[in-house]
């Protein structure tokens, strides 16, 4: 029985990886999933998921704008999300955490994206790819770009991780201990902007939540430790991305849909698990 299953698994894997576009997709999705799961963990911890969402929409305007002037969408995406992330950080927590302000800017950015598309009609075929991702079209150059970006993102995050956690959990005390709150929060949003740009290459700007919010939110339901949380979040994101690709290969459904449904499934399973077992430790009797 086990041999049959192993053989079946082997067949599935050889079949998929016979295609170069699948190997490329696995490599790209794997790297991006790990980066998204780790950066997303802090996004969820800081309660800034909506800001992450807004950054991806602003990125859409950047990507279509880049198309308009003949650049690759990734660079437009990067430029716009980075600029917006740094601007949000510079304006301070009060603005960047305000739902209404973010909502208005988000809608404005999507509007501009539409305008750029309007003037560059041949680009319109790529609009779907930008909005919903097109991981099966990833080439070698893109894999290299994603690897470099991913390394920069994780390196920058590692550099600010300690003060970032302190400032997220206890801003008043962090300030008293000399943590430059404004700088840390700006640097973090710049890191989120990088992660969003990478993530959008895989699942599209509209679905960055599937890798950046779903896995970390699920992880935080099942574990409350910092390192275990980061590990579970990155592993879940990786599993969802790769399973999603496999599922798409055999069903012919869009990859982003498969990842989205696995991400939602992962979250709700973890939510149910944590509700059934109750608090991590029983509350002592009063």
């Amino acid at each position: 029985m086990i041999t049959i299953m192993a053989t079946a698994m082997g067949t599935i894997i050889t079949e998929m990886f016979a295609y170069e576009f699948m190997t490329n997709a696995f490599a790209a999705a794997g790297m991006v999933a790990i980066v998204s799961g780790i950066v997303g963990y802090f996004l969820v911890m800081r309660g800034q998921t909506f800001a992450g969402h807004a950054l991806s929409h602003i990125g859409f305007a950047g990507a279509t704008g880049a198309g308009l002037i003949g650049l690759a969408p990734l660079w437009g995406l990067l430029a716009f999300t980075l600029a917006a992330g740094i601007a949000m950080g510079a304006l301070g927590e009060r603005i960047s955490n305000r739902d209404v302000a973010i909502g208005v800017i988000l809608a404005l950015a999507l509007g501009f994206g539409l305008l750029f598309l309007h003037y560059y009609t041949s680009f319109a075929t790529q609009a779907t790819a930008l909005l919903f991702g097109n991981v099966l079209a990833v080439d070698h150059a893109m894999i290299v770009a994603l690897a470099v970006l991913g390394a920069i993102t994780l390196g920058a995050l590692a550099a600010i991780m300690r003060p970032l956690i302190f400032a997220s959990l206890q801003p008043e005390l962090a300030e008293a201990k000399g943590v430059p709150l404004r700088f840390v929060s700006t640097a973090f949003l710049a890191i989120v902007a990088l992660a969003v740009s990478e993530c959008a290459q895989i699942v599209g700007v509209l679905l960055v939540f599937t890798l950046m919010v779903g896995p970390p939110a699920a992880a935080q339901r099942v574990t409350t430790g910092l390192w275990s949380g980061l590990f579970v979040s990155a592993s879940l994101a990786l599993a969802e991305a790769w399973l999603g690709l496999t599922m798409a290969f055999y069903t012919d459904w869009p990859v982003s849909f498969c990842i989205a449904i696995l991400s939602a499934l992962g979250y709700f399973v973890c939510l149910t698990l944590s509700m059934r077992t109750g608090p991590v430790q029983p509350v002592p009797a009063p």
Partner: protein
Amino acid sequence: MSIITVDHTTLRVGGRTVLSDVSFKIEEGEFIGVLGPNGAGKTTLMRAILGLLSPDGGSLKVLGGTPERGNSEIGYLPQLRTVLPDLRVRGRDFIASSLYGERWGLPLLRRRDGDAIEATLDAVGVRDLAERPLSDMSGGERQRLLLAQALIGAPRLLLLDEPLISLDARHQEIAIDVVRKVCRERKVTVLFSAHELNQLLGTLDRVLYLGNRQAVLGTVDEVVNAPVLSRLYGAKIQVVRADGHIFVMSRGRDVERVDHMHDHDHGHSHGDHHH
């Protein structure tokens, strides 16, 4: 040796003079109760001691030097304590975040830092909170956890800004006991701000009473009397002693109690003055 020397110091926040030309000295190992009406400068004084606010006049010496941000010899429990509403981080990791939290890099801790955390969890009696996420804790439980955090790393000076708020009577007693023990056994100097003098009567060495831009430091008898408090409140104050308790009254009303009720209504806006 004086731990804190305040010499003709003036402190201003946003153009408002909070303390004007005040002078006092706090010695090593003293337990100082910091009292006074809202807005009298309790938080401002602590922020100046932490080096977050420079004096507008006079000098301020802390632990033998000019106050500097990030001094690891000072343990601090801020009054305004933002806790994200759905924070799924366990108690141990929450307080561990404050250790070397101002340094760059990965949040790795050495074994002896981990041991220091465990020892403090036991000393404050919050071991049961170590594994629970913050989102499942009551306000009082978070408060006890933060008190434990302020004690990690053997500080020489503890600044506790309203540590009793949102604790029930039993846990208020426990909190005061823990701080007293640390103060006596490790000769840690404590500044403990509170609304109620009576809870601290058996514990404090001296009272630092703030009000009307002034500060008076002395024993309870020297400070908590009608002439001194009338000056600090800028109103006629009566001090009534009954059954080992002291009541500070203005026109027949208990000043501390009125303050306390006021704080429940405006606690947050009060904290905002300092940001």
